[in-house]
Every structure is written in C-alpha cells, then in structure tokens.
C-alpha cells in the first residue's frame, strides 16, 4: 500500500516564479490494483507520480510505502528502492538510440550486478511474453511505436518490481495499441503488482482493467471514481 499524508510540492520556493504543484494531498493507494491519476495538463499528475516513485522529494508531508516511510530516506536508500520496487513507463519512451532493444531493456538491472547470462535469459523471457523476441537484437530506431512501447514495458519489468508507474503511457499510441497496453497492464494485477497510471486519455481511465480513478485538478484531489 502507498500512503500519502499531506504531501505538498513547491517548485522555486521563495522566488518570484514559485509554483505550488501539489497542495497537501492525502490519499491511500491499494496494492495489487490499477489506479489512475486523471486530470488535465498541469494538474500535478506527473509530479505526484515522481514523488511516489522517489524521483523527487516533497516540500512537506510524508509518503509511506508498505508501512515504511520513504521521504526521509537518504539518497542511497532511495536509489535502492527505486531500483527494486518501481518500474517506470514514461510518456516519451526514453530508450537509448544506437543500442539494441535487449540492451535497453537490461539497462536498469546492470547496477545490481547480476550475472549477464541469467539477466539476458530473464530479459528474453519477457521479450517472448510480449511477442517481440524477434526484435530483441534490433536497434531502437528501427522499431515501430508499438514495439518501442513494449520494450519500455520489458525494461520496467526487468527488476521484477512490485509497483509499475506509467506516465501518460498511451500518449504516442493509436487506439489498438492503447487497448493492447491496457490489457498488458491489467495482467499485472494477476501477478500481484500495483499499477499507477497518470493519464487524461479516456482509453485509459475508462478501461475495464482500472479499479480506481483519482481526479486531480490544480494540484488537489478533486473527487474520485471507483
């Protein structure tokens, strides 16, 4: 379970361009469910995902992850949590051009120091699971949008995280690929993974696999849909 308690995030605090992105948000997100943060552009969805994913720290407030308080953790502990607990799927695919899909997918596992043979085997199993094993040795720039998206999903899963964070995952996908992506994300529930998506795409928040929709507006929670 992820628990946010009065979380506030201010950018450029004390400066003329100070911007309050999140205004004292308190919410609990259940484990093994698909939860969507829905809201217009600038509502604070991505900031909230970054806070939960330990990529940025709140200005005030606390976040608990499975009863463990994470906002006070020193950076090296946060790195460990980011690496082992979260898998990230970004709006921009953030894949590295010039290297193969397989290398891209294995990248987050390199700092752990796992043996290359077992890591490669695990990555290839995931490529099989998402039907892109034939593209494993293709360079990123040769892949279609859908194939690239699947590589980002494999990359997110490579360290077997318990929480998948996806920021506008359908932004660059057509209707068919978006539906396919939602089916894949829905399957994660069966594997006891928590999925947290930020999106303002109806294909996402109206999908059957979604358990809960939390509405955000101007950095505050503006009701929710179960």
């Amino acid at each position, binding site marked *: 379970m992820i628990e946010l*308690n*009065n*979380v*506030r995030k201010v950018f450029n605090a004390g400066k003329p361009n100070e911007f309050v992105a999140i205004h004292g948000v308190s919410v609990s997100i259940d484990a093994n469910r698909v939860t969507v943060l829905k809201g217009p552009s600038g509502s604070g969805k991505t900031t909230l995902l970054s806070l939960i994913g330990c990529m940025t*720290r*709140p*200005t*005030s*407030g*606390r976040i608990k992850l499975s009863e463990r*308080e994470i*906002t*006070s*953790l*020193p*950076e090296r*502990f946060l790195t460990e949590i980011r690496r082992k607990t979260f898998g990230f799927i970004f709006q921009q695919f953030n894949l590295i051009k010039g290297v193969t899909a397989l290398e891209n997918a294995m990248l987050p596992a390199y700092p752990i120091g796992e043996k290359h043979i077992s890591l490669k085997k695990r990555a290839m199993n995931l490529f099989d699971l998402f039907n892109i094993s034939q593209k494993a040795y293709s360079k990123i720039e040769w892949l279609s949008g859908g194939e690239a998206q699947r590589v980002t999903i494999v990359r997110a899963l490579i360290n077997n995280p318990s929480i998948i964070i996806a920021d506008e995952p359908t932004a660059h996908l057509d209707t068919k690929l978006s539906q396919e992506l939602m089916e894949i994300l829905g399957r994660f529930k069966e594997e006891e993974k928590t999925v947290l998506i930020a999106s303002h795409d109806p294909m996402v928040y109206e999908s059957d696999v979604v358990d809960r929709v939390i509405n955000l507006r101007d950095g505050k929670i503006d009701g929710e849909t179960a």
Partner: protein
Amino acid sequence: MIFHPTILALYISSILITFMVLYAAFYGVQILRRWNLASGSEDQLILERKTYLISTLLAYLFGFELLSLFLYVFTVDRLHTFFVGAMCAAGALYVNSYGYPALILKVVNFLLAGFWLILNYADNQGYDYPLIKKKYSLLLLIAPLLLTEVILQANYFLRLKPDIITSCCGSLFSKEAHTFVSEMSVLPSHPTEIVFYLSIGFTAISGLYFYRRGKGGYLLSSLSGITLLVSVVSILSFISVYFYELPTHHCPFCILQREYGYVGYPLYMALLGGTISGVGVGLLMPFRKIKSLSEAVPSLQRRLALASTILFLIFTAIVTYRMVFTDFVLEGI
C-alpha cells in the same frame, strides 16, 4: 615567513575547515532542538536535506583535518632552520608560547575528527538517521576546539621572530629540563619496554578476539587509549633513543627528519590510526542494538578492530625492527 607555501596551505585549510564547522554547528543546534523524524513539516524536510549535504562536506573537511596535523609538524620542522638553537620541530615550536598548545590541540582534534568520521559513517548506514543527534553533539564539542586551534596556529605563525634564540630538543627533552615531559624521557628503559610490549600485546589480542567473536569492545577501546599513552611515553623513553643511537637524545620530533628516513611519519600515523580505530570500536558499542544499525555496526566494528590491530602491529614492527637490527645497546642506561 607566513608566505611559506605550507603555512599558507595550513591557513587556508584551517579557515575553510573552521568556517564549515561553524556553519555545520549552526545547523547542528537546530537539529538538536527541532529534529523530529515523525514530522513531515517543511522545516524537518529541509533539515533532512541539509544534514545530508553538511555531513558529506564535513567528512571531506575532517579528512583534511587528519592530514593537517602532519602538515603542521612538517611545516614547523622545515622552519627550524630560521631560528638559532633549533635543531628540529621541537625547538621551532618553542619559539613562542603558541607552538606547543597548537600542536596538542591539533592532536586532540585529530582524534576527535577521527571519532566523528566513524560516527558519521555508522550513521549513514542507517535509513532513519539513528545517530544524528549524537553526531551533531560531538560536532558542537569539536567546533570551539577547532576555532581555538586556528587562533593558536595563527598566533604561532604570526608571532614567529627570526631573531629569537630558542632551545634545542636536546635540552627540552633532557633530565635537566625538569618538566613533566622531560621526566618521562628519563624513565628507566627496561621496565618501559616491558610495559610497552605488554600493552601492545594485550591490545592486539583484544583486537583479534573482537574481530573473531565480536565481544570485548569496551576492553579494546580502553586498551587502545592506554596503548597510545604508553607508546608516547615509550617514544620519549627508549624508542627515540634507538633511532638516534644516542642514549641522551629523547626527542620525539627528530625522527620526522630526512636523516632518519622520515620514519616518524609512518610511526605516528600507525599509532594515531590504531588508536582512533580501536577507541572507535567502543564508541559504537551502545549503538549495536539500534534496529537500523544492527547489521552495519557489528560489521564496521570488526573492520575497525582489525584495522586497529594491524596498525598497532605495524607501529610495533617498525620499532622492533630498529631495536633488533641496530648495533646500539641501550640496556643498563
């Protein structure tokens, strides 16, 4: 004279260290007064971020503080040629009334900086800042001492007068000087040798026992402190004499010179390093049961115990090698 490169290096480093320590002490006071990990207030989160930055900076600065002791001794040793009567750092330090107090304070701060680094390292192993208040309490103790050290050091260098005739180490560490240090210099060599080897032996056994069994931390800590004192007395009493092959020369500084292969530097580094590591084991004993440190601290203590044993044995090996492989015979003096 103050434009001597090493003096400038000492000035600049001391000013930087003191400025940073005072800055850190300012936040230390706030941490001691306002730290509350249960709170998610903006103030608390700012303190959490600041302490991470400050402790990283202090770790480097205290690392330099360890080196600055040897730089100070090296500089003073180099300066002795400017003063009539001085043969080594002992005479140069005696030129005015600030030299020796600055040296003593530097040694004290060297030890305290070492203990702070151990405490800081242990604290960084815990996810919940388990030693933060202890760490900053120690910093508040060190800060005024560092400030005093800088003032004494500055006064020493600024008040160096080349026309002063000073005393040489031969008279400062002789029986005729009638000082506490000179009294130690003339302690009978044979009993002092026995006490020295016994203290090293017990400390090494205690260190190895802790390394293997993880027990006896306070004993090792106490023995390390005692060994430091016994070793300093031994240097004055018989160790220096073996290096100079002169029964009346007890100076603890001449061994830092080229004529003696700069052997004083490894000797003092091993002795002080062994002391910091050994005492550090005891320093960490009360924190072994803290949940977030229950694995990290015992492992760190074992490494410190091993380091302490090795360093004390290196010190003893250098001394013993000289005693064994010299034609000079001291016994009976």
